């Protein structure tokens, strides 16, 4: 049920008739939204719907073309992020900005460090202040103020950003969280949500941007949905459901998000025995043609490190990797690609894409060997290849000559997939394939994975989203501290079972050895060695 848009007045933070144009592109059109104090307002929408632009305007990073921002009915003049900060509007960015070589305390108060005469850092005052703030906010158990920025986990880095937002000369009035859980594990999410609950109870207007339905229903009081730069609707979280939100976001129904089928064959494409690298210990696993195997676990469990080792990017200390039955030695990604292993890595912008180059260039890169005669790339065949895969994966762009940086997250991910699909790998490793991808593109990516499996590709998916793991995988391997702590087939896999294995106490170092070696008896496709 849609509530009529609240008038942009009264207490709290409000956007009033905001329009934002970037050259010819209209990012926001007449957006009026109200974020009342003491409530969590979730902001949803597909990538490119305007969420980030709206956040930037509310926090003074961008200035609106038309319209204004109000706090408690007072018009704010936001020319820079510092103006918003002074007014009490704070943001926890998606990627925390952490200075690596200084302590947590200095990171938190960077820019306003306590100092003594002669501009010397007042270390005792700094320690007193951080201790007080950590205690006040209940972080004293989880964050050591003496740690260096580079030593922090993803969750701790986020805590530093939260501390920055909650400290300062003026009291916070409104805090925006921009997809705060995308790099957090489930138990870290719980702690974050408890904190957000406390902020709400303290009368702060909380803005929560996320793609994750479950979180939003747990947390939000109201849900505002943006679509194509306009407000598609504002709904009450207690009376709405997932279906209505999806309809608001994409303007259509998504009947089934997952299209799992069981088409695994007996042909073992990848067999790993006792693989050990610097970060991965004694891992054994196998993936069959047509099988989707998911690697679950907390952040830092060693899943991405395992993926990089299988892609030939990190050296193997001991153990063997077999592809289609023969032992392979991977001295670099080039060897892995030759063996038919493709990796769509975790950080698509940093590790996979050439943002300044075209969709065509990005798609053809690992297939150039097939597209060239002598060393000359056949432009016609290259175009045909890129166009073919762009059509199959429904990449939304003006043309294949569009630069990849102009695409939305979901379409960028499709370009990464197109690159590997064009190469036709025997094994495709997908590390967080739907991170930062809107829900429409997500469903399409799941369909692509299902289609690939049906065509006989072996697929290894790493995902931190448990519904995704459960919806996609024929089999789930759970990792913890660089070891595989359990195998679950799809009948055994539940969120509880996966979490139990992911967080199992690592007190018995002998035990993992027993459970990592999956029984490979006969051709049973579902080794059931759980603990």
């Amino acid at each position: 049920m849609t509530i009529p848009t609240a008038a942009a007045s009264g207490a709290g933070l409000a956007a009033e008739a905001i329009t934002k144009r970037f050259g010819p592109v209209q990012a926001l059109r007449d957006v009026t939204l109200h974020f009342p104090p003491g409530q969590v307002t979730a902001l949803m929408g597909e990538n490119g719907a305007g969420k980030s632009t709206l956040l930037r305007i509310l926090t003074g990073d961008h200035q609106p073309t038309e319209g204004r921002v109000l706090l408690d009915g007072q018009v704010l003049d936001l020319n820079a992020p510092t103006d918003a900060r002074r007014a009490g509007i704070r943001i926890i960015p998606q990627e925390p900005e952490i200075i690596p070589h200084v302590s947590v305390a200095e990171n938190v108060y960077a820019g306003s460090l306590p100092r003594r005469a002669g501009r010397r850092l007042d270390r005792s005052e700094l320690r007193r202040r951080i201790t007080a703030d950590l205690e006040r906010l209940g972080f004293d158990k989880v964050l050591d103020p003496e740690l260096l920025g580079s030593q922090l986990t993803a969750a701790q880095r986020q805590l530093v950003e939260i501390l920055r937002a909650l400290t300062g000369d003026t009291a916070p009035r409104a805090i925006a969280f921009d997809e705060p859980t995308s790099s957090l594990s489930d138990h870290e999410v719980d702690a974050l949500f408890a904190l957000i609950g406390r902020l709400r109870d303290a009368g702060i207007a909380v803005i929560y941007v996320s793609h994750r339905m479950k979180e939003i229903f747990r947390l939000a009081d109201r849900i505002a949905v943006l679509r194509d730069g306009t407000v598609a609707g504002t709904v009450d979280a207690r009376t709405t459901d997932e279906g209505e939100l999806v309809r608001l976001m994409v303007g259509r129904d998504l009947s089934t998000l997952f299209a799992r089928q069981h088409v695994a064959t007996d042909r073992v494409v990848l067999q790993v025995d006792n693989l050990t690298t610097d970060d991965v210990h004694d891992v054994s696993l196998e993936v069959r043609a047509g099988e989707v195997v998911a690697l679950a676990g907390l952040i830092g469990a060693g899943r991405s490190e395992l993926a990089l080792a299988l892609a030939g990017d990190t050296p193997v200390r001991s153990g063997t990797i077999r592809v289609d039955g023969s032992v392979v030695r991977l001295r670099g990604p080039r060897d892995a690609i030759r063996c038919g292993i493709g990796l769509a890595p975790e950080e698509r912008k940093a590790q996979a894409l050439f943002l300044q180059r075209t969709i065509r260039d990005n798609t053809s890169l690992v297939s150039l060997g097939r597209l060239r005669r002598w060393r000359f790339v056949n432009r016609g065949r290259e175009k045909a290849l890129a166009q073919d895969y762009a059509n199959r994966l429904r990449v939304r762009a003006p043309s294949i000559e569009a630069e990849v940086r102009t695409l939305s997250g979901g379409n960028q991910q499709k370009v990464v997939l197109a690159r590997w699909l064009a190469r036709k790998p025997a094994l495709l490793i997908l590390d967080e394939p739907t991170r930062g991808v809107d829900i429409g593109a997500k469903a399409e990516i799941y369909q692509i994975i299902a289609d690939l499996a049906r065509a006989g590709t072996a697929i290894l998916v790493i995902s931190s989203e448990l519904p995704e793991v459960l919806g996609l995988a024929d089999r789930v391997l759970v990792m913890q501290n660089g070891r595989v702590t359990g195998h679950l087939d799809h009948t055994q896999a539940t969120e509880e079972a996966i979490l139990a294995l992911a967080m199992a106490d690592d007190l018995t170092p002998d035990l993992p050895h027993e459970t990592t070696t999956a029984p490979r008896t006969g051709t049973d496709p579902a080794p059931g060695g759980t603990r």
Partner: protein
Amino acid sequence: MTTALSVDREPGDLGDLGDRPTPAATARTWLARAGGQNLGLIGALALVLTVFGSLNPNYLGWDNIQVIAEAVTISGLLAVVQTVVIICGALDISVGSQAGLASVTSAMVFTATGSNSLLGIGAAIAIGAVIGVLNGAVIIYGRVNATIATLAGLAAYKGIAQLISNGSAQGYVLNDSLFVFLSRGKIAGLPVMVWLLLLAAAAVNVLLKYTDIGRNIFAIGGNDTAARLAGINLNKYLIAVYALSGMVAAAAGVLLTARTGSGQPVSGSEGLELQSITAAALGGCALKGGRGGIGGTLLAVALLGALQNGLTVQGINAFWQNVAQGALLVAAVVIQQRRTGERAVGLPA
């Protein structure tokens, strides 16, 4: 393997949007193809030619045009190869010193082998290749930043050239027909040196634009992690690019020998690194790598040559020309950075 994937299209998919471009979009596409940067360069070149041409009618004469063309060949060759190095995301500031060392080597080997010009030229090019591989190895295996490594090279190779030559010009080569041909020969009315520059530029252009090697060079400069994970052997490419840089710099050194008649350890090659980087930056190479082209670089070389010649013809102090060159390099980079829209906070990325 992927035939099961859907091939039908929906409205809004790729291809449909491209079918109905607005006139403005068509104009933008056309401009983008011509290259906004290149149009700017052509405009600047036209302006320089008009200004100096109106100040001195001889400036636009065929004779002076040839003088300009010949004067830019050596720096032009270095600019062409610098373009490749910069697209790769690196920098080679030792090219001038390499050219000087190659110039001395060519003349000394020529003299020592009883006027064998082929051996002299071959030795110079070989030295260039060795130095290039050395630069690449220091950068890759010593983990030395490319700018610092080649800055060290700038000093060291100049020193070697001065050591082996005792700091003075070596030999006399213009009694050899090949060197004479290189310095004074003409093919179809154009000096041989200019042909060599055009040939090298055309070859590098084909390499960058039409081969998978070129694609991989752009990929390395654009995102080296992604390039590595896509199976590109970064070390091989970087060493090869530095070797190419060394050999082309050596060829420029040989031309220097031919032009001046003797091996020059320093004079004539000093400062060429600045000119080559300025030309590449003016020509639209992103100094972060991953973007650029030979067309723009050649236009920038022509612009710089025309400017320098015009200032000389007008009798303007050569010291001012240095100032102009430094200012142009900064201006080129500032324009580049403005376009990326990077915010002016802290050190540039």
